[in-house]
């Protein structure tokens, strides 16, 4: 598919000219809101930056709805757990938007231990003409007041303010890896390595534990939960993926504690591919329901799989993201790249899926035509508003002109987080500390 680039670079790094990113600027999550009007990113420094799409104007038809910074706020601060002598990172692990119910926007953001509900609201008027205090806020001397007046709302420059409305803390012993809002818009769940808790958005001092896979003896631990999500249409159903490559679907109507799954999705391992690292590469890093709720998609290290909820024995479709890395697993283990957690996303109509790779490449797979494309998010290799050129990685043998060989891939440039607009063909791709937004070409 043809795309044009509309690049936004977020880099608050002091050393702008240098080609490395401050670690705090590394983007750790990207999420569109349900209408696609807003795009939120979280970074390792605990900040959230929200972009808003411009209204399309007739004057500049080619600049269709670009995204501009709408609000920036510090969501989480680094903390210290004195009891365990552990530092709690402020990195934002996930952001999830709530559906809009009034003029304000609400989102949930989480770090390793604490989930916060933020309200983002606009203020474009302010009251003037108070009786007891003057414009600067100083208290007026009552004896000088001779007449009463009614304060009037005067227009002011638009100000966007973010306020934390709820803080959900102290419910997780292990690191939170996902949050998911239920279809009922009243509850959400937060997931750590061994437990899933259900919260009511209004109540912060208690949560219900709905899944607990912690063994009585930690020594018997064999798998952890890696991601979880509510069904998009059924508020009683959710899925969670494990480090062993399996997905469990649970129904909260069956029991309060959903340790027993309703469905169990697992593909038997191919014995011919067995290696030291088989367990690592089969660990699922992300799981997503399709918008229809009929399918679910999982991402493990080398593949993306689409599953039909009605078929537990094997996936419906398997797509190889970067199979050329299979022979390099040992080196990837050494440099820790094998532990990278790639995410995957559906497009609005569930016909295309997208996921990231290394060297700032990201891949899209069309489920209907079975075509796939590799694109690169890089400023050096493509100009703004230019159409992205498909890239190709050559696997041994002769390297053609535009191809890149496996050995020259840059493994420090990885695209872990991507997002797709809920209805249009606009994607947001986070490449380390840069955010790229691509749109479909308009003819």
């Amino acid at each position, binding site marked *: 598919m043809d795309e044009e680039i509309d690049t936004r670079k977020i880099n608050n790094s002091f050393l702008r000219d240098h080609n490395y990113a401050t670690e705090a600027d590394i983007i750790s999550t990207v999420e569109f809101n349900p209408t696609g009007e807003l795009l939120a990113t979280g970074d390792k420094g605990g900040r959230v930056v929200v972009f808003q799409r411009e209204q399309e104007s007739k004057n500049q038809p080619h600049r269709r709805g670009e995204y501009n910074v709408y609000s920036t706020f510090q969501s989480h601060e680094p903390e210290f757990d004195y009891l365990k002598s552990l*530092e*709690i990172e402020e990195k934002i692990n996930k952001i999830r938007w709530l559906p809009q119910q009034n003029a304000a926007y609400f989102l949930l953001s989480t770090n390793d231990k604490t989930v916060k509900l933020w309200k983002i609201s606009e203020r474009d008027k302010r009251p003037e003409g108070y009786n007891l205090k003057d414009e600067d806020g100083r208290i007026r001397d009552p004896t000088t007041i001779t007449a009463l007046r009614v304060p009037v709302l005067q227009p002011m420059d638009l100000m966007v303010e973010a306020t934390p409305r709820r803080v959900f803390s102290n419910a997780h012993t292990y690191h939170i890896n996902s949050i998911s809002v239920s279809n009922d818009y009243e509850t959400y769940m937060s997931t750590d390595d061994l437990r899933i808790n259900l919260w009511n958005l209004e109540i912060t001092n208690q949560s219900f534990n709905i899944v607990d896979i912690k063994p009585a003896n*930690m020594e018997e631990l064999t798998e952890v939960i890696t991601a979880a999500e509510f069904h998009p249409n059924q508020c009683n159903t959710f899925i969670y993926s494990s480090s062993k490559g399996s997905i469990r679907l649970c129904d909260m109507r069956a029991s309060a504690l959903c340790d027993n799954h309703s469905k169990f999705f697992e593909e038997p391992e191919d014995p011919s591919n067995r290696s030291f690292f088989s367990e690592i590469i089969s660990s699922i890093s992300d799981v997503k329901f399709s918008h229809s709720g009929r399918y679910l998609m999982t991402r493990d290290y080398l593949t993306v799989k689409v599953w039909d909820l009605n078929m537990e024995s094997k996936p419906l479709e398997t797509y190889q993201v970067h199979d050329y890395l299979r022979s390099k697993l040992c080196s990837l283990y050494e440099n820790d790249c094998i*532990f990278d957690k790639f995410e995957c996303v559906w497009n609005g109509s569930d016909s295309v899926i997208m996921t990231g790779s290394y060297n700032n490449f990201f891949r899209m797979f069309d489920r209907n035509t079975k075509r796939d494309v590799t694109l690169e998010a890089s400023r050096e290799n493509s100009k703004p508003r230019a159409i992205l050129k498909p890239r190709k990685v050559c696997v041994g043998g002769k390297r053609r002109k535009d191809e890149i060989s496996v050995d020259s891939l840059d493994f420090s440039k990885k695209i872990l987080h991507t997002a797709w607009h809920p209805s249009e063909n606009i994607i947001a791709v986070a490449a380390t500390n840069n955010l790229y937004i691509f749109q479909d070409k308009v003819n």
Partner: protein
Amino acid sequence: MEFKVEAHRIMSISLGKIYNSRVQRGGIKLHKNLLVSLVLRSARQVYLSDYYGGICLSAQQAREWCEGEYMTSDQDKLIPGSTESLSESDETSDVAVDKQEPRDVVESPAAQHVETQASGEQDSAENGLSVSGCSDINTPEESPEATPTCEVASVVTAISSNCISAPSPSDPNEATETPTDCQTDNSESAENHSDEPKAPQAYTNRKRTAEDSELTDSPTKRTKVTSTSLPSTNDENKGETEEMDTSNVSSLITIFGSSFSGLLSNKEGEQPDSEAEDSDSGQICCDQMLKNLNPWSTAIVAF
């Protein structure tokens, strides 16, 4: 054989990762450490299964190694391979293992503390010992603040020496990415003493090296005599972990015997043994272990 080298390398890398995870910001990541421990276990399985293939050949060269190697006076005594020394060493090894375990279990998700604990313990063990042999080994391991690589290397060599049950003659140097000669020798320690009582004995003696000579009366490896060297039970842990010359190794092997199973089960299983044991080494180990036991067990419970 290249599998062995590869496995060995992977094991050392895995240990390094586990060590580093302890000092990482944000606390220990359960998921990553679980995966690393699984890799470590797979690598160890391959390493050991490979070993059994070469055990016959190794016997000969083991002897040669023996003679040419540096041995402590303690070890010399043990060479005749008396059964008493064997049983003693079993005990001590048990004790040593126990000693390690409580410390290791602190943060239960993974044996992140293993290395530091091991090195720390070595220090204490070493201090009390007049180790005549292999003092070089002590050096890298003495300071807990030793660089991670140093520590890992020593741990790795320990592991290699332990893991390599039978002397691998074909590549006596392979296990030797070790800082000291003594460690190299250690690699020859025989696990399967049932097959080659004498040769392994010599090795194990030698292996004793410096660190914990008290512990290492004769680290008779109760080698897993089983042909299937698949570590998945505590029994196997015992067999594996009889290596005593460095408590590091034994604890590590115990711990990684079956993913996380090694952490607590051995401790409980062998504690009675160690307490019954009355040898000096046992005593010292006991004391140390008991000292450490309480805070750790509470920590585990808390976690």
